[in-house]
C-alpha cells in the first residue's frame, strides 16, 4: 500500500497546526505556484517545499512523489515543444508536417514547457504535502456546518481509499495462490500459481488483462459487501437522525496554538510575497518570442524570502507531540 497517499499524525509543527490553518497554508502555496513564473523562484519554492516536508517528517514520501511528478512533467515538456509554433530560436527542423504545418522545434517552447512542468511539479508537491499533513477528518468537520451528510460522505470516501487498496492487494495475493487452470473458463488465468513448482509463474498479457478484470470485479463485489456493513454501522451511529438534528458540532473548542499562529502568518507572508512578485514583475518570465529571464534584486529577495516564510514555522518544535 502506498503510504504517501494517507494522512498520519506525526510529531511536526505542521501536523500540530489545526487543519483549517494547514489548508490555508497549502492554499497560499498553491496560489504562489500559480502566480509566479520565474524559474528561479519556482525552483526556490520547490526546494522550500521539500525542506518543509522534511520538517514535517514526510520528506521521504515527498521525494517519492517527486519521482512520480517527473513522469507527469516530462510529457508536458515534450508536448509543448512539439505543438508550440512560437519562439525564434529553432534547434531542430522536422520539415513539413502536412496539416500541422512546419515542424520547427524552438528553444523557447522547450524552456517554457520546462517552466510549466516545474509549476505542475510544485503543485503536485503542495497537494501531497497537504494530504500527508492536514487531517482530513478535521477539515471535513469544518464543512459539516454547511452539509453534514456531504462532509461525512467525503470523510468516508477518504477512509475507503486505503481499505480498497488493501482489499485489492489481498485479493491479488489470493489469486496468486491459485494453481493455474483450476477452473473452467480460465478464471485463474493471469495469476501466478503457487502450487506449481517455485519460480514457475503464469504470464502473458492476455492472461494478465483477464486476471485484472476478474480481480477488479472481485474488488468491486467486495466493496459492495463492505458498503452494506458500513451503511449498517452508519445507521447505528445516527446518520439518519443527523439530518433532522440541529448542527452544533462544527468542531471542538480549541485554543490557537503557536503553530496555528505561525502557519497563519506564514500563509499570509507567502501570499503577500507572491502578489508582490506578480505585481512588481520581480517574478516575471517571458519565453516568447525570445527567452528573456531577468534577475534583479526583487527576484533574489523572492528566492530568499519565500523559502524563509515557508520554513520558519517548521523551526519551532515545541508542543508538537500528538
Amino acid at each position, binding site marked *: 500500500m502506498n503510504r504517501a497517499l494517507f494522512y498520519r499524525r506525526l510529531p511536526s509543527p505542521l501536523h500540530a497546526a489545526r487543519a483549517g490553518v494547514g489548508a490555508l497554508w497549502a492554499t497560499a502555496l498553491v496560489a504562489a505556484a500559480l502566480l509566479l513564473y520565474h524559474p528561479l523562484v519556482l525552483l526556490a519554492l520547490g526546494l522550500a517545499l521539500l525542506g518543509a516536508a522534511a520538517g514535517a517528517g514526510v520528506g521521504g514520501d515527498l521525494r517519492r512523489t517527486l519521482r512520480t511528478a517527473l513522469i507527469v512533467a516530462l510529457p508536458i515538456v515534450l508536448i509543448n515543444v512539439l505543438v508550440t509554433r512560437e519562439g525564434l530560436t529553432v534547434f531542430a527542423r522536422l520539415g513539413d508536417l502536412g496539416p500541422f504545418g512546419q515542424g520547427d522545434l524552438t528553444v523557447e517552447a522547450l524552456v517554457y514547457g520546462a517552466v510549466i512542468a516545474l509549476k505542475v511539479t510544485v503543485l503536485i508537491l503542495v497537494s501531497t504535502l497537504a494530504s500527508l499533513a492536514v487531517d482530513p477528518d478535521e477539515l471535513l468537520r469544518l464543512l459539516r456546518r454547511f452539509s453534514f451528510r456531504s462532509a461525512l460522505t467525503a470523510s468516508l470516501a477518504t477512509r475507503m481509499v486505503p481499505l480498497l487498496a488493501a482489499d485489492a492487494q489481498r485479493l491479488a495475493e489470493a489469486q496468486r495462490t491459485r*494453481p493455474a487452470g483450476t477452473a473452467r473458463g480460465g478464471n485463474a488465468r493471469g495469476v501466478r500459481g503457487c502450487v506449481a513448482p517455485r519460480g514457475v509463474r503464469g504470464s502473458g498479457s492476455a492472461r494478465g488483462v483477464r486476471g485484472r478484470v476478474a480481480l477488479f470485479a472481485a474488488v468491486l463485489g467486495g466493496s459492495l459487501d463492505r458498503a452494506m456493513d458500513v451503511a449498517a454501522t452508519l445507521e447505528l451511529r445516527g446518520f439518519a437522525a443527523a439530518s433532522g438534528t440541529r448542527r452544533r458540532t462544527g468542531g471542538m473548542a480549541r485554543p490557537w496554538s503557536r503553530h496555528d499562529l505561525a502557519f497563519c502568518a506564514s500563509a499570509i507572508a507567502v501570499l503577500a510575497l507572491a502578489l508582490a512578485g506578480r505585481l512588481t514583475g520581480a517574478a516575471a518570465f517571458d519565453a516568447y518570442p525570445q527567452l528573456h529571464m531577468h534577475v534583479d534584486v526583487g527576484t533574489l529577495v523572492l528566492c530568499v524570502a519565500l523559502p524563509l516564510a515557508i520554513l520558519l514555522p517548521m523551526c519551532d518544535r515545541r508542543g508538537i507531540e500528538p
Partner: protein
Amino acid sequence: MSVLAFADVTYRYPAAQAPALAGVSLEIAPGEMCLLAGLSGHGKSTLLRAACGLAPHFHGGQFAGRVTICGLDTREHGPAALGGVAGVLFQDPETQLVMNSVRAELALALESRGYSPAEVARGVEEVALALGVDHLLERSTHELSGGEKQRVALGAALAGRPKVVLLDEPTSQLDPVAADELIGLLWRLNQEWETTIVLAEHRLERCLAVADRVLALHDGRLAHDGSPGSFLEWSASHAAALQTPGAKLFSLAGLAPPPVGVKQARATLRRHGLLPPEPAPGQAPVPPARLTSGQAPGLTRGQAPAPAPASVRARRWHRPTAPAAALQMRGVWHELRNGPAILRGVNLALAPGESVALMGRNGAGKSTLLRHAAGLLQPTRGRIECTRIALLLQNPGDYFLHEHVRDELSEAALLAAGLAGMAERNPRDLSGGERQRLALAIVTGDGEPPAVVALDEPTRGMDREAKAVLAAELRRRAQEGQAVLVATHDPEFACACAERVVLLADGRVIADGPATELLAGGWYFATETARILGGAGGALAPEQGAALLSSYQRPALKVPAGIYG
C-alpha cells in the same frame, strides 16, 4: 422491568426459505451479562440485529412479534434512534471504523445526534479513558492493530453511554491476548457501570466465567435459557457441539458439576484429590509437562515419571530429517526497507505427512512466514526449498471470482471436496465451513496433491462443529503424506490438527516441539484441558484429560486409543 424484551418474534430475511428467528421470547434485565450460544446460522446475529432495529429496518424481510429495547419498540423506531440506547459491535472492525482518526471516530455518534462541542469533547475523553484508548486518539484508524481497532469500534459504540451493548462475535478476529482483554473490558463495563451486555460468541470457554446467563439458539428458536452452569449441563445432553472443553473433560471423567472456568474446574479437581497441592514454600515445582499419567498428584522432583498414555505417546513428535523435508526454510529473513525485520533467521523443516501449528501473537510473523513458504514474498536473506505448496489465506471469499461454484472448480474437484451438490450456488452464499472447503479445494487444485498445505488463520469465525470438520480434513491430508502448516491462535484447533507446534515471537522461532509439551504448559498458548490439569501428562484434549484423570483414580484403566480417529 426489562431493558431488552422479545415477544414471540419471528423474522425471515428477504427471499429466505426458513425464518432466521422463530417465536423467540425473552427478557433481559438491566445489568445482566448474557451470552448468546449456538452454531453458525442458527440465529445469533439475527437476534442481535433485531434487537438494534437493523432487522427489519435495514435488511427488510418479514417481521412478526415485538422487540422493545429500553422501552423503545423497534417497529416504531429505526436503528438511528435505537443506536442512542444500544451500542452495537460486529465481527469485523474494519467495517465499523468510518473515519480517519480515532478521535473523529469516537466523536461521530455524538456529533450525529447533535451534541454540543463541549459534550462531544467530554464524551470522547471519557470513553477513551474508560476503554484505555486515550493514547490512540490522534492515531489514524488504518494504522491500528486488529485489537486496537476492535477497542476503538467498541468505544464508538459506547460513546453515547448506551444502556445496552450488543456484540456479535467481537473476538473472532483477535489473537487470544486481545480477545481476553476485550472480554475483561466488557466485564468491567458491566460491573462498574451496570451496562447490559449481550454477547454472541463461539468460544464460550472464554466468556462463560463472566456471564450471568446463557441463551442458546437452535434453528432460530430459543433452545435454552439459564445460568452458565445449567447451560453446560443442558449442552452435555442436547448440544454436544456447544460444550466447552472443560465441560467435556468433566463429562467424560464422570465429574460434576461442569466447570464454567478453569478456576472452578481446578477447585473441583482439588476437592476430589485429582490435582497436586500448591508447592510448599522453598519446594521446586515439577514442570507440568513432566507429570504423566499414573503418577499420584503431588509428585516431587526426583521421582521417575510413569509412561504416558498410549494416546498421548502416539502423538509424539519426531524431528524430521532434512533431506526428506517437504518444506525447508534456512535462515530466512524478511526485512522491510526503512522498517523493522519481520522474520529473523527462521529455520523450519516439515517432513511429508507432518502437521505443524504455527502460533504466536498478532505481528509475530506467522502470516509473513506462510507467504514466504508459498513464494508470495522473497526473503531478503536465507533460502526456502519447497516443491509444491498450496496456501489458503485468511479470507476464503478472496478466492471466489465467479457467481457459481461450478465455475470455480472442475466437477471432479468439487466431488472430491464434497461440494458436488452446490455447483449451482453462488460461492458467497455458502456457509463459513463450506466456503473454507471450497477455497481449500481451489488452492490445492484438482491435479497432483501439493507437498505442503498451508493455512492462515482458517478458523476465524467458525463454530466448533466446522472446526472439527476442517481438523479432520487436515488430518486426512497429513495421513496421505501432505505436510500441513497451520497458523492459528486457537490452541484447541492446534491440538486437534497438529502434532508439532512452532511458537513465533518478533519474527523468531522461540519454541519448537511436540504439541503435548508446548500446548500444555502455558497461559495463552494452552488448551483449556491443559490449563485445568496444569499441563499434567501433556493432556491437551478433553479425551486425553479424562483418560489421565481416570488413571489417577484407577491406574489399571486402559486409555482408549484413537481419540482423534
